[in-house]
């Protein structure tokens, strides 16, 4: 690994906005940060990259006073400081946009922004003040949110903007963003970057954690690579390249960019899944899905592109039987389901039809966080005879479960290998691998995948994509929902674009270009989501 210019970048006159020296932090058994030194020049965007669990979030959490470092020192604008809690960090002009949004679903955006920084004792007065300030801020930065909508009812993109507004409203001079683009669409990402550039112009210093090297190259002035809790290298952007960074992160060569050619698309391949006239509406008659019809054939990967919050989530829920639509027919594994007459598909019957599902929200859906990994590794397949033992299969076969889990960990390189560790203790990347391994394990004929690589590092992304392709080549029909255009383009043989609960376009991969898709998705997308949000608010 390149250790040249480890630590700080060559300093010019002005003191660095942020100076971390020899920060160490351990959680019980885990050394999250090991003598990390990092210095960020004022008014620049500084990238921070590294594998899942490399220690990026922890380091930033320490800078934000959310965790206390075991050892090491921090200096802000050259002044050594002790950051005991977030309050202090905020006073020092540090703002943080957390990886897992720090918002209260049951409160309005306005309340969320001012919480902790209310300008007046009585909320009405406070709201009036904050509202006007925010409107100014929104105009200035182009970050637009519905101040009165409940957070719980807004699409992630908007929440992301809300988080940034929150930080800026508190007068952040140093802005930390932890995987801000993990949940954004290209359009939203571009907007975000516009904003960030504008902020940089204003002299804001920005620390950006991301798994997407393209973004680093596009935005950052300097970038630091972490691995296993340590800084591997810090380079100015001009001296580095994606390949270089990737190698530094993973410690080996990583294949980036557009993959080998997609599978020859044949219309004769057997039909695995067909839906028609699918429609679903939320409580207050907000249309979520409108007259959706699609088909999946053996041996193809169909990508669903779209601004998150345009029905992809619901589509997956309906197709996997987690949610019953108002209308629509479904053909799957030789069985027909009609929402109008008779019961809709249920998760159980879905698996009987050999349909597997990798849910978007792995934390709430994909795994039981309080279970050890080996129990999570059979979730959904707990009824399979092979996992049962004893009379009438009343008992679970733990030996078998553990051995299978170990096998999954082995095949999908889940780290750590020890499947007795609690599911929550694995990084998102590894959690994702585990879920994928579980769902692919039973050789499904149809696989639904939501956000396959959200929050996952490039090493893992490469691997996961390989697995999905392999499955396709084995004759499985795969439906991939992703807000990453790169991913859609890298994986799909056919692309469906969703917008406002409708299918607004279907393209063969050959005719796909980022811009073209982008336009299809973006077309009035904002208005759509806003409308929905307003209706609900």
């Amino acid at each position: 690994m390149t250790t040249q210019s480890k630590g700080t970048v060559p300093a010019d006159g002005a003191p660095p906005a942020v100076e971390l020296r020899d920060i160490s932090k351990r959680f019980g058994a885990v050394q999250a940060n090991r003598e990390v030194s990092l210095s960020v020049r004022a008014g620049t965007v500084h990238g921070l990259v590294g594998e899942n669990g490399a220690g990026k979030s922890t380091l930033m959490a320490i800078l934000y006073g959310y965790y206390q470092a075991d050892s090491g020192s921090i200096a802000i604008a050259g002044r050594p400081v002790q950051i005991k809690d977030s309050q202090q960090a905020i006073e020092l002009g540090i703002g943080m946009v957390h990886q897992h949004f720090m918002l209260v679903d049951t409160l309005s955006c306005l309340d969320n922004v001012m919480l902790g920084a209310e300008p007046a004792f009585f909320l009405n007065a406070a709201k009036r003040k904050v509202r006007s300030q925010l409107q100014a801020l929104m105009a200035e930065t182009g970050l637009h949110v519905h101040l009165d909508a409940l957070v719980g009812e807004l699409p992630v993109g908007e929440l992301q903007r809300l988080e940034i507004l929150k930080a800026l409203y508190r007068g952040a001079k140093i802005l930390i963003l932890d995987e801000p683009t993990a949940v954004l669409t290209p359009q939203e990402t571009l907007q975000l970057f516009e904003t960030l550039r504008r902020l940089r112009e204003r002299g804001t210093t920005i620390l950006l954690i991301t798994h997407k090297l393209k973004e680093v190259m596009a935005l950052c002035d300097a970038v630091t690579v972490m691995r296993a809790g340590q800084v591997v290298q810090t380079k100015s952007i001009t001296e580095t390249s994606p390949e270089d960074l990737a190698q530094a992160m993973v410690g080996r060569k990583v294949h980036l960019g557009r993959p080998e050619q997609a599978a020859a698309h044949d219309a004769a391949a057997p039909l695995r899944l067909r839906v028609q006239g699918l429609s679903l509406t939320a409580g207050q008659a907000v249309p979520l899905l409108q007259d959706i019809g699609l088909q999946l054939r053996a041996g193809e990967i169909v990508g669903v592109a779209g601004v998150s919050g345009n029905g992809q989530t619901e589509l997956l829920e309906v197709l996997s039987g987690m949610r019953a639509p108002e209308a629509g027919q479904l053909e799957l594994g030789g069985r027909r389901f009609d929402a109008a007459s008779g019961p809709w598909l249920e998760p159980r019957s879905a698996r009987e039809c050999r349909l597997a599902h990798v849910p978007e929200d792995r934390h709430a859906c994909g795994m039981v966080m309080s279970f050890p990994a080996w129990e999570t590794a059979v979730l959904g397949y707990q009824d399979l005879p092979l996992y049962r033992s004893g009379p009438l299969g009343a008992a679970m076969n733990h030996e078998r479960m553990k051995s299978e889990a170990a096998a999954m960990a082995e095949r999908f390189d889940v780290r750590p290998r020890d499947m007795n560790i609690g599911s929550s203790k694995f990084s998102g990347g590894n959690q994702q691998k585990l879920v994928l391994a579980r769902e692919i394990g039973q050789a499904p004929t149809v696989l639904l995948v939501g956000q396959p690589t959200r929050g996952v590092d490039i090493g893992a992304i490469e691997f996961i994509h390989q697995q999905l392709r392999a499955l396709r080549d084995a004759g499985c029909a795969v439906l991939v929902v992703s807000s990453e255009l790169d991913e859609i383009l890298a994986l799909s043989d056919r692309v469906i674009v969703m917008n406002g609960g409708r299918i607004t376009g279907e393209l063969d991969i050959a005719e796909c270009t980022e811009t073209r898709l982008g336009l299809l998705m973006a077309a009035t997308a904002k208005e759509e989501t806003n409308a929905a949000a307003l209706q609900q608010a």
Partner: protein
Amino acid sequence: MDEILIGSMLASTLRVTTPLLLCALAGLISERSGVIDIGLEGKMLFAAFAAAAAASASHSTGMGLAAAIAVACAMSLIHGFACVTHRGDQVVSGVALNMVAAGLTVVLGIAWFAQGGQTPPITADVRLTGLIPGWSEPEAAVAALGPWLGAIVGHGLLSHNLLVYLAFFLVAGVWFFLERTKPGLRLRAVGENPAMVDAAGVSVPRLRYAALMLNGLLCGLAGAYLTLAQNASFSPNMTAGRGYIALAAMIFGKWKPLPTLAACLLFGFLDALAIRMQGAVIPGVGEVPVQLIQALPYLLTVILLAGFIGQALAPKALGRPYLKER
């Protein structure tokens, strides 16, 4: 005659509702901040004892109230120390406080007053008497205002003591506090997502302790009402499960002030009704078993709950001690 009945029933409803309401509001504030409070029963009991003891010893209503509030707050502090500071189990802590209260009140009572855990009755001048004391008798109210007005408004509504009106006023107070003030906003937030509040630079423990103090204040008032207003002395275990009913009312009210008021009023009313229905005779069937009538309020509650009140959503962080790990 029946207007008297209605009036007395109204009066009784308000009297019975008051301690439930104060307690339920106390629980509401604590639980909205994310801290379960099974200990309402114990706090109310100990507060009632403190109020009676202090009032009878000092011959001052103020002292009684102060003592009640102080004791209840102290118990809230213990709860906080165990559950907020040290992340102990909130339910166990509540159960423990109930046990200690049930035992210690009697032990102290015997030690101090040697009347088997009862406190000496407090004198009339120390007790909280009605706004218009005379009207606590329907007849007097009727004489003053005429039949219906007198019975229902005079006796039913105006014959109560300050704590009753305070309790109802506090419903609005708590609502305003939660929905319209800065600490209220933070309190609601900490019950839903403490990590967020922490990240926003507000101390989670401090907020929860504050909530627990308010909780103590209200429990204190509830207890004081029992011994300074409704009765004139303390007797062992006199709360007789009202703390749990208050808890039920708060959940019934979905952790919101106004619905909680409705739930408390419902319990109060059903109680007053059941009392007056005892000995009722159903033609043909004969006299209704008294146990059935005594069970009626609980039965109706269950039916109402099943029939009309939908899912109650608890604060998301309720019962989860907050640590800075995911």
